[in-house]
């Protein structure tokens, strides 16, 4: 029984990371209707930036804030330079763009920081959380940050004008222009926010998986699984999906014989396909009601 609760708690903790990635995925999906395959690499690159800043002597939280700002600006720059010209291009062109971006960022990170594994600090420490052996302070911190992020996003989208404008631009772009919204910049803003959210995920997971250019590969697949499970149109669903995928991954790894660590990734993929077949809108995605 203790093993069971242990695995669930650990699942929630890793799920927090998937939740962050899923949030980033959902942000861009809402803005441009595509899954950004380079999301994980963008997060990895941001994490390297924060690591570099800390190497230069900037304290953790200072580096954290600077990295958020860098990622936000970087996300906007990528959209303006690469994906704005592709806005009207067919889906395959966009996919090619994402894959190119993936390869470029991965190689550039390797070029600058090489492929050796680096230690990455945690601001929360790695002591037992509240004296419990089940979960560490870092894991508790990851969960806390994810929940805070979700709450902040909820308020942003529900109660600010710019959040409403972003939702409108995602909902019906032409009508959004007809009420005076600059939809093109709303997309750029979505990219900036997604990049910043992704960087948080990267910085939180780096102490667990260690820092190296390929650190986000598996995480992104789980992030996709989480986003699909929760519903690609729902930030709340993405977070719940993240936690569920984390728990599921851990339980499957522990209790299903033969899965172990090696077969965890196919489980995420199986989950994606199952959800898409059984409930394409995901658990919390809004099935769009349309009357004609």
């Amino acid at each position: 029984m203790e093993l069971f609760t242990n695995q669930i708690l650990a699942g929630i903790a890793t799920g927090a990371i998937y939740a962050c990635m899923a949030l980033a995925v959902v942000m861009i999906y809402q803005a441009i209707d595509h899954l950004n395959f380079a999301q994980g690499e963008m997060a990895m690159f941001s994490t390297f930036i924060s690591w570099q800043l800390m190497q230069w002597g900037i304290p953790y939280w200072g580096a954290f804030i600077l990295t958020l700002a860098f990622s936000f600006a970087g996300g906007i720059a990528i959209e303006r330079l690469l994906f704005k010209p592709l806005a009207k291009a067919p889906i395959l062109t966009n996919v090619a763009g994402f894959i190119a971006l993936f390869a470029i960022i991965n190689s550039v990170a390797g070029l600058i920081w090489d492929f050796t594994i680096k230690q990455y600090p945690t601001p929360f420490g790695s002591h037992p959380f509240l004296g419990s052996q089940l979960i560490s302070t870092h894991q508790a911190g990851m969960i806390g940050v994810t929940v805070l992020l979700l709450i902040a996003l909820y308020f942003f989208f529900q109660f600010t004008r710019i959040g409403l404008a972003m939702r409108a631009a995602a909902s019906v772009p032409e009508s959004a222009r007809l009420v005076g919204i600059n939809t093109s910049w709303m997309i750029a803003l979505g990219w900036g926010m997604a990049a910043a959210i992704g960087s948080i995920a990267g910085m939180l997971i780096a102490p667990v998986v260690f820092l190296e250019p390929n650190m986000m590969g598996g995480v992104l697949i789980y992030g996709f699984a989480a986003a699909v499970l929760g519903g690609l149109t729902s930030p709340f669903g993405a977070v719940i999906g993240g936690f569920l995928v984390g728990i599921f991954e851990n339980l499957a790894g522990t209790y299903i014989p033969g899965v172990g660590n090696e077969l965890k990734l196919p489980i995420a993929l199986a989950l994606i396909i199952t959800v898409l077949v059984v409930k394409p809108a995901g658990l919390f995605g809004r099935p769009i009601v349309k009357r004609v």
Partner: protein
Amino acid sequence: MTAMLNVRDLRSYYGQVQALHGLTFELNEGSMTTLLGANGAGKTTTLRAICNMVRSTGSIEFEGAPLAGRSTENIVRLGIAHVPQGRGTFTTLTVEENLQLGAITRKDRANIVSDIERMYDHFPVLKQRYTQQAGTLSGGEQQMLAVARALMLRPRLMLLDEPSFGLAPLIVRDLFKILGKINREDKVTILVVEQNAQLALELADQAYVIETGRIVMAGSAKEIANNEDVRKSYLGY
């Protein structure tokens, strides 16, 4: 009366296909003008061209300022509200959010709440449904929402693309009554494209008839309504 909107030699294209062949017309400030024409004559294209939603040449001036080269959202910010064909409802958002979006470019935030209340006075059915996802509204309700959303801009000029489309006759009467009121009381200049020519001519001061991308007739609504060709082609008697 001065011309608020001045359109000269407007030519619009969808890819290689030319839809407007040199349209020239003007709208007087405070007027209500209707644009009549058969399907495919270019009515919708004319409205879309004013908001730079279709590739066009020629000149369009709004209150003396040329609109050429401005993006759709910039044109809207000048005070031109466009109720598009098909209503353009933000179906996934609530009714109230749709109304707030109409006012999203306005700086005078304090007045927005009272303006929403005014829209609920004009269209009580929207008040009953204000937390509802707008996509669940009936066609008529969505049309009212679209008009209300456009009014939330506090526009100087309002472009309406077949507001009566799909509405029951009684509701159409109501809608046009409200449009007339807005035109008179709020001094909003209105350009309305209508299939229901009779009703449109009753309420409008000015009318233009458009055929295959050209203006073929212009005059006061009364003159146009009495014209024999118009009666035969558009009024059916």
